[in-house]
């Protein structure tokens, strides 16, 4: 499970810039590493609606955090604040002690990648091309060399292609490399989105409902995939409605209710907390269903 040593395997050739290998690694167990991502008092106000209220948490290296809460609790809004899509009304997000840039492109460059609740692949590009786009920030090509197909251009393309092949194999999609993303089965689209996010060499991966719409078998495969990602030394934050999934996956669970961090703790602590049961787990099943639909609508409008 000493995943950091497995990382060069995914790199292919070693001379690409790789954010995760550039991070000073802390010796010790996976969840006891230093804090990589820190949210401090994050508040997000939309007009009269306070979507997030003073949310603070830290993510350690190699840790898997689960983020649960009823719909409208602000989970996706928090992700948007963590990836520079939204500028928090107050409070701050920092990555390795540095303030998070307010530009999503630079956030990616700094090593934060995400997937979306409503899958957002590039539908008219192949699976392999989607992953290649993920390599964008880690590739260098001069305009002249790209037009003339010079040696540095061909080297950079070959490296990206090799890395793409490995990532597709890693998520189990090798056989679909040449398939248009929109033609992939739903579960495979979710895994492709993860491969694309991994292609940016993230130190932190944010997964927004990675098992939504999946059957039990696919869900289990996703769990194993997330463990494998953690073993690469990548810290993971997962939003999920499936609490059983969260409690068996995560090192730590945060419960967000009405924009506030209600409970934070190990899966066992959170599962037993009466406030959580009341606020979230206790909701009758049909109400939970209604909330899920509401969340999907919210996801469509989140820009």
């Amino acid at each position, binding site marked *: 499970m000493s995943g950091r040593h497995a990382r060069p395997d995914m790199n292919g050739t070693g001379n690409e810039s790789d954010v995760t290998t550039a991070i000073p690694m802390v010796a010790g167990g996976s969840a006891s590493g230093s804090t990589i991502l820190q949210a401090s008092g994050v508040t997000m106000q939309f007009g009269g609606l306070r979507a997030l209220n003073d949310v603070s948490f830290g993510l350690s290296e190699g840790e898997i955090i689960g983020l649960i809460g009823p719909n409208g609790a602000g989970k996706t809004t928090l992700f948007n604040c963590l990836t520079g899509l939204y500028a928090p009304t107050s409070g701050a997000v920092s990555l390795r002690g540095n303030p998070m840039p307010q530009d999503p492109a630079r956030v990616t460059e700094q090593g934060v990648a995400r997937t979306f609740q409503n899958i957002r692949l590039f539908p*008219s590009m192949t699976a392999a091309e989607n992953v290649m786009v993920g390599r964008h920030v880690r590739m260098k090509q001069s305009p002249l060399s*790209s037009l003339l197909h010079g040696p540095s251009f061909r080297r*950079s*393309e070959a490296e990206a292609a090799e890395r793409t092949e490995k990532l597709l194999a890693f998520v189990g999609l090798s056989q679909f490399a040449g398939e248009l993303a929109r033609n992939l089965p739903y579960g495979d689209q979710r895994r492709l989105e993860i491969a694309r996010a991994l292609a940016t060499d993230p130190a932190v991966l944010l997964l927004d409902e990675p098992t939504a719409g999946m059957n039990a078998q696919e869900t289990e495969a996703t769990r194993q995939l997330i463990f494998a990602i953690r073993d690469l030394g990548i810290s993971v934050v997962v939003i999920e409605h499936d609490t059983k999934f969260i409690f068996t996956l995560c090192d730590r669970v945060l419960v967000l209710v009405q924009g506030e961090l209600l409970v934070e703790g190990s899966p066992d602590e959170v599962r037993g907390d009466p406030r959580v049961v009341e606020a979230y787990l206790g909701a009758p099943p049909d109400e939970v269903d209604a909330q899920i639909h509401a969340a999907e609508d919210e996801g469509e409008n989140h820009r």
Partner: protein
Amino acid sequence: MLSTLLSQIVNGLVLGSLIGLIALGYTMVYGIIQLINFAHGEVFMVGAYGALAMFTYLLPTFIQQQWYFALPLLLIAGAVVSVGVAVAMERFAYRPLRNAPKLAPLITSLGVSIALQEVIRVFYPGATAAIPFPNIFIPGTWTISVGDGVVPIKYSGILLVVVALVLAYALNMFVERSRMGRAMRATSQDRDVARLMGINPDRVIVLTFALGALLAGIGGVLYGGFYTNINIDIGFQNGIFAFTAAVLGGIGNIRGAVVGGLAIGLIKSLAGQYMPGGSAYDYVWIFVVLIVVLVFRPQGFFGETERVRA
């Protein structure tokens, strides 16, 4: 007459390659920001004037007289002027309207188009009338005897077709297989997610305008060389053809622009020869074909049907 038919096909292919070259600019810009940039025809026109200005005012006589010195310099001058104009146009006219309703940049593009025409008319010496364009290639014509007559092929026409097809192929390779090409396609499909992949959409959009202008500027120089004179209306006329070609081929699609251009070139020359009314009605036939194609295939030859967003 076979020789007449073949001659018209040759004319059609030359004009079609040129239209295809301009259509690439329309189709790429539309693909990225869903804007029909009506000023793109003027980008083509200023390329021709830029090259002409350099030839007339900057080049010494001994370079003017040797096409192999003058041609590369003129192509570079045309490309530089067109790219400069297009990049400035994007930066100052369209970027401020990036989040405005789509009609605003569209109307702006018409304004930019008229402004560019008028700037050339007012400030370029002699631009109120057609100006002769220098020879940029081996002068003369290759004639092929076919049975009852001859098919003349100007050398500058061969140059135009070859350069246009090579550039279209290079552009297609760039868009399909390079980091920035993929970034362009990603931006056209989902700009927000492209940004999250570390792509800077503003840079991609400028690059798109610049690439389209590069092709248009080179097209302008080749046009001048083939048709031997230029005037300020060439941008408007050929721009309308090129826009039509892009729609016919499937707007947003690179192969479509080239095929659409060739189709329109051929329709224009063949209809001008064989249809009633002759060349006075060749425009009519172009738009008749456009309408018929769009009735049966609204997305054009190569266009995608409604995209399914996952």
